[in-house]
């Protein structure tokens, strides 16, 4: 929906301004010419939803690990061989909300965009958009249906608003048709959206 009219060169101007700022900061010695690229590389390979997917897959195959993840999330995360050793920026204190047949969990940040970087990486656009932040707090079922996810009316929805220093993520339910899958195969099915609570993990394509 085009709600506001913007100058036609909006993105061109934004891009030039961002590059101008970066080039000045390099010249002034604030950052180096590699800083931004190196940061992006860390999020591409070391801190991202691929970590969360491994946690979820491990929880699916190991009930004791799943219980630990629910009860002492950081202790469970430390057992993985993540580069961040289970912490890292915006993930110093994380909590996992475990989906069950009775409970569906959803994470939001009504005040800004808090998100567990070490296990989920950076948040998708929709999570940062004011419409999601406002509406998911009051009408999560309606919001989820816009994502194409209809939650059974008898199932409880729990919404977790990240308003202090704890960062939340969701452990989705294991899909049918995955008996005998390895952790690696399972992890490949897990999407960022499923670890935020706006989608289920889909069964593997046949």
């Amino acid at each position, binding site marked *: 929906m085009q709600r506001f009219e913007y100058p036609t060169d909006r993105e061109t101007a934004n891009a030039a301004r961002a*590059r*101008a700022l*970066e*080039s000045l900061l390099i010249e002034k010695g604030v950052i180096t010419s590699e800083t931004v690229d190196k940061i992006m590389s860390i999020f591409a390979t070391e801190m991202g939803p691929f970590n969360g997917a491994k946690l979820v897959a491990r929880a699916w195959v190991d009930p004791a690990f799943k219980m630990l993840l629910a009860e002492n999330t950081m202790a469970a995360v430390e057992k993985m061989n993540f580069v961040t050793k289970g912490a890292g920026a915006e993930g110093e204190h994380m909590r996992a909300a475990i989906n069950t047949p009775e409970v569906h969990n959803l994470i939001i940040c009504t*005040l800004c965009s808090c998100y567990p970087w070490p296990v989920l*990486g950076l948040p998708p656009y929709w999570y940062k958009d004011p419409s999601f932040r406002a509406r998911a707090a009051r009408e999560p079922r309606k919001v989820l249906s*816009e994502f194409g996810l209809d939650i059974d009316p008898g199932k409880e929805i729990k919404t977790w608003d990240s308003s202090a220093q*704890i960062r939340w993520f969701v452990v989705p339910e294991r899909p049918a048709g995955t008996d005998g899958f390895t952790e690696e195969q399972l992890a490949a099915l897990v999407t960022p959206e499923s670890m935020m609570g706006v989608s289920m993990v889909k069964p593997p394509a046949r």
Partner: protein
Amino acid sequence: MKLQHYLGGLEGLDPISLETRVFVEAWEERIFGIHTAMMALSPQLNLAATPSTFGTVWTWADLRKGAESMNPFDYFKFRYYEKWLGGISAYFVANGYITQEELDARTKDFLTSPPAMPKGGDAAVDARVRTYLLVGDDPKRDRSTPPRFASGDVVRVANPNSVDHTRVPGHLRNKHGVIDSIYPDAYTYLCDTGPDGIGEAMPVYCVRFDPEALWPGNTEKHFTFYADIFEAYLEPATAS
């Protein structure tokens, strides 16, 4: 009242965006990277000094102060990283790292015949940024006093006057909830929020709310709302 504190539950909004990309324009990752570097190089962190010329404090709180003081309609008009671009550019100008004239002139250069990006810088700068990302900035501290509330206690969320930054969601102000759990130890906040009340290490609680009490007759069934709340924002329950 600052509209930005009261987003939770706001009515009349648009359908949800289904855009799953993190960066919807290529330039957005540049400003994200700059912000992250600023956080990593901010001098209050207990990390090795570097030759970076960045010497002023920059945390999420500083970024948010900017967003919270915006005209509410600009806040909604501008896309997420557009607000960052505006706020961060203004910070570098206000703190004397660059001048507005320099930035405008350089922007014009990039609009007309883009110059090559400068090369170089000390590797120690990037090493510190990497360390920050992998280690983080742990807010947990030993608890000096016992927590004021216990699991199951009914509490009321305070309504402190917010000066320029708060972590009290507007839709919870003056509302009653139940302590669902107490986080171990105590947590500092990124800055002292003054009369708003956080900064020093204090207990943090996960508080459970009945959405029907938050939005009577105007919410959904079989739904529970949880929020993590600093102790300074909680009061014993009052009759209402």
